[in-house]
């Protein structure tokens, strides 16, 4: 078997193992903490009967290991259980919200990825000159600003003062794609700004790293034009690190979505999760945690696999 296939398979299996372990951790995080879960859900004033009912409902009287495996087994079959607060099927509630969240993340990625790569290249091209310095100053600032600040500033100035876009990103089934895009314009902008800074900074570093290699000097000493040096010699070696950067930041985006959805009251996974954390609805929290972790681990695994595939030493072994 080709060593690359073996390595990719290995990463894949490793990713699955990690996901399995993460699911155990999420389960353990909600179940085996100090104190009684039923107590902390119902509060100090709960009657003993109510506590006992809650324990039965959560299956707390069975051994933890058994509960974990039945939870995991059901989750693998798409059964995420029912919410404590309203008794609705969790998988059903999540599926639509997950779609909404992915819709939001998709547009944010579509705008931020090309923009970040372009600005990263620009910063490298004008290294240590004003465009580079401006870009790094803006980057430093935006890394220091919480997502919800960017959200409210845009909301305050663009939607309230200028009245350009709705301040609340409500979407529903009856809306056309254009209406939807109009509704999510602000949250997408905020998400883009949030991810852009990180992605640009890392892209710049990745390209600079390649541009400082000795083979770039060789190419320059062959009398090639700047364009050809970059296109023929820097680009093939920069793809892997850049793709890696993009993947890592998409994973970051998945988390940024949580806060932005709350700010713009967007009916997605993030808002669903936050709502049910405050209601202490453990099954919902577990399900959302598992899905977020799966997306995050999946993207990281993809980044790993892409850098293996792009490595010429691995693709063409001795």
């Amino acid at each position, binding site marked *: 078997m080709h060593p690359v296939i073996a390595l990719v398979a290995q990463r894949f299996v490793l990713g699955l193992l990690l996901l399995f372990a993460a699911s155990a951790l999420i389960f353990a995080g909600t179940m085996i903490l100090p104190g009684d879960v039923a107590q902390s859900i119902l509060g100090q004033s709960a009657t003993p009967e109510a506590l006992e009912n809650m324990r039965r409902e959560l299956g707390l009287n069975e051994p933890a290991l058994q509960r974990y495996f039945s939870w995991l087994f059901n989750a693998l079959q798409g059964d995420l259980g029912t919410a404590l607060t309203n008794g609705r099927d969790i998988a059903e509630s999540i599926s639509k919200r997950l779609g909404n969240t992915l819709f939001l993340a998709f547009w944010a990625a579509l705008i931020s990825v090309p923009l970040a790569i372009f600005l990263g290249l620009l910063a490298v091209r004008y290294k240590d000159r004003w465009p580079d310095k401006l870009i790094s100053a803006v980057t430093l600032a935006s890394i220091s600003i919480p997502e919800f600040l960017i959200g409210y500033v845009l909301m305050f100035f663009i939607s309230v003062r200028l009245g350009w876009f709705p301040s609340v990103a409500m979407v529903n089934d009856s809306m056309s794609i254009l209406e939807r895009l109009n509704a999510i314009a602000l949250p997408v902008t905020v998400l883009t700004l949030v991810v852009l800074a990180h992605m640009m900074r890392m892209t710049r570093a990745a390209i600079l790293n390649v541009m400082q290699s000795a083979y770039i000097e060789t190419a320059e*000493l062959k009398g090639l034009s700047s364009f050809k040096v970059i296109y023929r010699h820097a680009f093939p070696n920069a793809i892997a690190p850049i793709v890696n950067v993009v993947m890592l930041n998409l994973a970051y985006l998945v988390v940024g979505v949580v806060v932005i959805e709350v700010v713009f009251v967007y009916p997605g996974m993030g808002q669903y999760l936050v709502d049910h954390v405050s209601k202490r609805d453990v099954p919902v929290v577990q399900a959302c945690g598992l899905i977020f972790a799966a997306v995050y681990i999946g993207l990281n695994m993809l980044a790993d696999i892409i850098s293996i595939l792009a490595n010429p030493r691995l693709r063409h072994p001795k």
Partner: protein
Amino acid sequence: MSEPLLKVRDLKIGATIFPPGEKPRDIEIVHGVSFDLERGKVLGLIGESGAGKSTIGLASMAYGRGGVKLTGGEVWVNGRDILQSKLGDIRALRGAEVTYVSQSAAASFNPAKKIMEQVIEAAVEQKKFSRNEAEARARTLFAKLGLPDPDNIGDRYPHQVSGGQLQRCMTALALCPEPDLVVFDEPTTALDVTTQIDVLMAIKEAIKDTGVAALYITHDLAVVAQVSDDIMVLRMGDMVEYGSVDQIINNPQEEYTKALVSVRSIEHEEKTPNSDPVLKVDGISARYKGLTHDVLSNVSVELHPGQTLAVVGESGSGKSTLARVITGLLPPRAGEISFAGRTLSPELAGRSRDDLRELQMIYQMADTAMNPRQTVGTIIGRPLEFYFGLRGAEKRKRVIELLDEIELGEKFLDRYPAELSGGQKQRVCIARALAAKPKLIICDEVTSALDPLVADGILKLLLNLQKAEDVAYLFITHDLATVRAISDTIAVMYQGNLQRYGSKSEVLSPPFDDYTDLLLSSVPEMRLGWLESVVANRKMESAGN
């Protein structure tokens, strides 16, 4: 008289440096150098690190590496001053009229592209040849440079061929566009000595066959003497001496040149074994975790008090592994080490404080061998405190004594390693080893990272200290000149085996085994025609067999 191919007049080169904690400032690193190079001739540029030789070489392509700027003077190539040319004209010159061979071919080849594509790129791009012509030419060059399977080697990726082969591919890359001038920048320095001679010969013949002119940059006078017509000696950005090879090697005028020519001519009378050995290595085999083969197999050597055992070999010979086994960092799989009459525990943790004290080590890179946050006084004082419990004034007095012994003196007491030169750092490391009053010091390539003259100083110091302190050295090196200079006993290592072992005179006298013969005959000698005579001898031998 026709115009020379390359005419350099009063070339001045500057650079911006960034001293820590200060504002960046501009300094001049080459202060007005002039020379001519005729078509088809080879000029050697020689000097120690910081002499500005690579910078001058790249200036002939109007290229400044990093923050280097060509600040003044003229560089005429084929009748035009390229320092005044437009970027487009300079690009037309690079890769067509002037090409470049770097020290590290491994880093200079793009890892993502096949060798052939990179070799012919300049020739095709500069419209010197069509793609097919260039490929045919590259294959001819591969064959001429002695590369295996010249018709197909171009289809491989850079990481799929060896270091010596890649260096030859780089030469093919430089020669492929049929340039007028090739700049060779230390092309053999990173190679093992037995590989170096092949690459050197290949380069020399390629230069001769193609009639190309060359700037050959190196720090090794013996190497440059084999390939050049003229030599220019540089020091700290100034020209020291400029003349024909014959004049520079056989009749140097300047003191500095004389020192360079006579470098490594330290004479050392071989001592005979006088008493029981201080170190006895018996049947040692060792391997690193995760490897399936031994890096050392069944090695036995002895070392007598006050004497030097030189362990010599190329990369991968296992010589540094031997040092790790003796120090206890790598417990052996088999065999035993006795030291000063006691059997040493194979593990570091099992050794007594006296075992540790009496066996000291000096490293190749003095930079990383000293804690950058400690002063010289602390570094040398720590073993005094640790082994002998010296404190305060007593310790300080002893540290100053040691500083005097290594010819540095009291004023170095409060300096930090970053404030010392390479040679001074190595001296401090020697003092730290001596502070423990050891019976044996393991010296691992201690002079390899230093310029030849500085290295000579360190070797002389080590010899003097050996006389004064009666300490034994286990001297690990790849450099046979160093071996000649200091050893009493020699162990030649090859692929983890002890290839040849005995007193210096025995090991260095015939009859030789094949490997030792190859190794000894590959060391460049400071005389004209050495390369040809070795190659002729080898051809004769192989014909005779």
